[in-house]
């Protein structure tokens, strides 16, 4: 952001806003949690809290990836396709009912590398072909689904790999291994965001890309790298879904693209870039999961749930964004 007009005014607002700008989503999370807890004894049971956290695992990993892209001010819709391709890849490489492969961890690594490759492709399309990230990633998503469909070839691969299956079933300290993997991703994401040039520059690109250029930083490689890292997260998320469902589905990533963007935005990561981060997004993921779970627990009719959920999400985002409104920032 270059500060030109209304400097004095925006300066004041930023200062005032800084205090509770970041507090909105966590407060909303606590408030919504308490409301559901008061309404439903099942909701506040330990088992259900475990359930919520477990259910959040995959979305959390996807959101980790998408957060970096959003921080940069771009958008990424490729997760659905990348996850599908990764799910099929991993299910065909670990022990399964379609072929004799049994590569175990190497298969999982391959799926993640494939995710990286798709992210790299998105990044290249963005910086070399100057395709807007919205279209570039939508295209990559379609390519991912296409690749997944080819690998699917009419027969669903069911996995029999004991380790991968156990990720969804076995527990450590009451939470499934997948949840711990998600926690590790969040930690890794936070470290990248805080301690690496990649993370800080992603943040800076969202804040004021032209300043980086004026400072002699070559921005493009970082953009490609950010999409690549995001792709790795999607690849891992595809593996996790496969572990959960016990099978490689083309539709493994169905709906995760928009859920992840929603979660990130609810958590306070702005689509305009430069604000928010991994921890914000994590709060957003929990908020979304608490909401879906809570509405079922308190027995809201399924016919009403979609609408109610949408309403609460919009309200939460509005509450989180109001302190950040500034005069010169047009929200379209």
């Amino acid at each position, binding site marked *: 952001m270059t*500060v030109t007009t209304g400097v004095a005014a925006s300066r004041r607002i930023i200062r005032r806003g800084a205090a509770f700008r970041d507090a909105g989503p966590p407060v909303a999370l606590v408030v919504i949690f308490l409301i559901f807890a008061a309404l439903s004894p099942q909701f506040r049971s330990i088992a259900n809290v475990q359930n919520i956290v477990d259910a959040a695992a995959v979305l959390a990993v996807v959101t980790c990836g998408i957060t970096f892209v959003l921080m940069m001010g771009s958008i990424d819709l490729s997760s659905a396709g990348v996850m599908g391709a990764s799910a099929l890849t991993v299910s065909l490489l670990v022990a399964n009912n379609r072929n004799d492969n049994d590569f175990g961890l190497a298969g999982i690594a391959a799926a993640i590398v494939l995710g990286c490759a798709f992210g790299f492709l998105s990044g290249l399309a963005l910086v070399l072909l100057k395709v807007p990230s919205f279209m570039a990633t939508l295209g990559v998503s379609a390519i991912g689904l296409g690749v997944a469909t080819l690998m699917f070839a009419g027969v669903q691969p069911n996995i029999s790999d004991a380790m991968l299956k156990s990720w969804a079933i076995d527990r450590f300290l009451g939470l499934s291994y997948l949840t711990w993997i998600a926690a590790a991703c969040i930690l890794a994401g936070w470290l990248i965001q805080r301690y690496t040039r990649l993370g800080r520059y992603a943040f800076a690109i969202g*804040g*004021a890309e032209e*300043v980086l250029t004026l*400072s002699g930083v070559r921005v493009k490689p970082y953009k490609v790298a950010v999409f690549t890292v995001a792709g790795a997260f999607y690849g891992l998320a595809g593996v996790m879904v496969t572990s959960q469902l016990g099978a490689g589905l083309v539709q493994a990533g169905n709906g995760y693209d928009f859920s992840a963007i929603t979660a990130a935005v609810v958590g306070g990561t702005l689509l305009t870039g430069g604000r928010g981060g991994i921890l914000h997004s994590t709060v957003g993921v929990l908020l979304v999961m608490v909401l879906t779970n809570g509405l079922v627990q308190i027995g809201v009719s399924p016919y009403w749930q979609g609408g109610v959920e949408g309403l609460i999400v919009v309200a939460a985002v509005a509450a989180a964004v109001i302190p950040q409104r500034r005069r010169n920032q047009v929200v379209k």
Partner: protein
Amino acid sequence: MSVPAEREPATSAPVPALEVRGLVKHYPGVKALDGVDLVVRQHEVLGLAGENGAGKSTLLKALVGLVTPDAGEIYVRGGAVKLRSVVEAANHGIGMVFQEQSLVPNLTAAENILLGSEGAAVRRGVYRWDVMRRLAQEQLDKIGSKIDPLARTDTLSFADRQMVEIAKVLRIEQRSQHPPVIILDEPTSVLESKEIDTLFAQIRRLREFASVVFVSHRLDEVLDVCDRVTVLRGGQSVGEVATAGAVPRELHRMMIGSTGSDDHYHENAAEPVEAEQPRLSVRGLSGKSFRDIDLDVAAGEIVAIVGVHGSGREDVCRALFGIEPTSAGEIRMDGKKISLPNTRAACAAGIGYVPAERKIEGMVGPMSVAENMTLTKQKARCAGPFVVPKKQAGLVDRWIERLSIRTPTRDTAIQRLSGGNQQKVVLARWLIGGDIRLLLLDHPTRGLDIGARSEVYRLMRELAASGVATVLLADSLEEAIGMADRILVMNDGRVATEVGCPSGGKPSPLDLVKEMV
């Protein structure tokens, strides 16, 4: 003490830190630089003065590699160099503090200071915050700033951010063995006077180990802080002045030149109409950044509002059009109160607004000239809900001719026109309805070349003569003085004083500046 525009013979002094010879830069339709010469000696503060459009900013951009000159040479410590990027300029020890601050708001001060030259603070892509903090602190210590290096930049005051920028620019010392050349582009335009003092102290410190090029609109500042001043006019260096004992008027004369400006620029064409009641009458208007504004504008009168950045004048102007919310006060048009804040009501009352951010607020870039012109006056081109092409075409062509807008056709996308012609289309939008009574012009000549500017001036005069009242936020004091019948000086959100500005009795810029700061 002015001396002719000749290059200093390089005998007595050591090699200049930076020298420019015969720099030329053309833009379509404009010769921004027309053989500029410039010498920056070691350990001196050189002022650069010139009116808008004199070529200052193009010259500065050429010095930091953002603009490639068409001809001419740049020498650093006697050696010819080609500067193709900011990095190359930095490698030669040239750095600039940009007028529009170039900091990333959501990073810490330390990161901004080290941005692009992190050195030991980043190892294999991983940040070492303690090293970063230390390196940034070293930079801040150089200029004696007490800012916390780990504070987020957007939580700092404007003056502090400027310190961060200077600290950042000084990182170029790491890249070059020689004392750096630091360019400060309009650093004072948004500072308060106390902050300006600090900045000047800073500049004097910088001189100990660097050369400084200082650019400012305010001639008193230039004389205050600089050792020497080079004056630019029309893309050429027209003189050098040693500041000791010099007075602003002398500099000003050189900036304007002996030819003087266009006639209409300094002559009011018609006397404002004396009426029972003013066309626009504002009483006690208060808002976020302004308080108790009283303002009357008669039909046919041009009233300029001047003030430094942050004085609140932009907000007052926007409040009159109902964009900026107000907390108290009333606005009357021809005695009739209009509701606030409401853009529709303002339009209905015959108020038109030409925004400063033409490209953002003033026009829809990809739409045609015709569409842009008829944007607010749909009625004029429509029958019911439908656009009547013939009606629109006739109307638009008439105004294209009347304002001599140079456009290939009325269907050309407005973004393809030059700035001056774009501005005329924006103006025409308010004129085609024929019911305009008050025009609010927010920097109407910003970014226009001299020819286009004088056309806009001519247009303003014509409108005033036809009885339209005008509130003008001018681009420069000279413009305000030239165009206005009356000038309101705003300072810190209030009207500090009102100065009559009739033909033949114009105040001087300095009279106004006194009240502004």
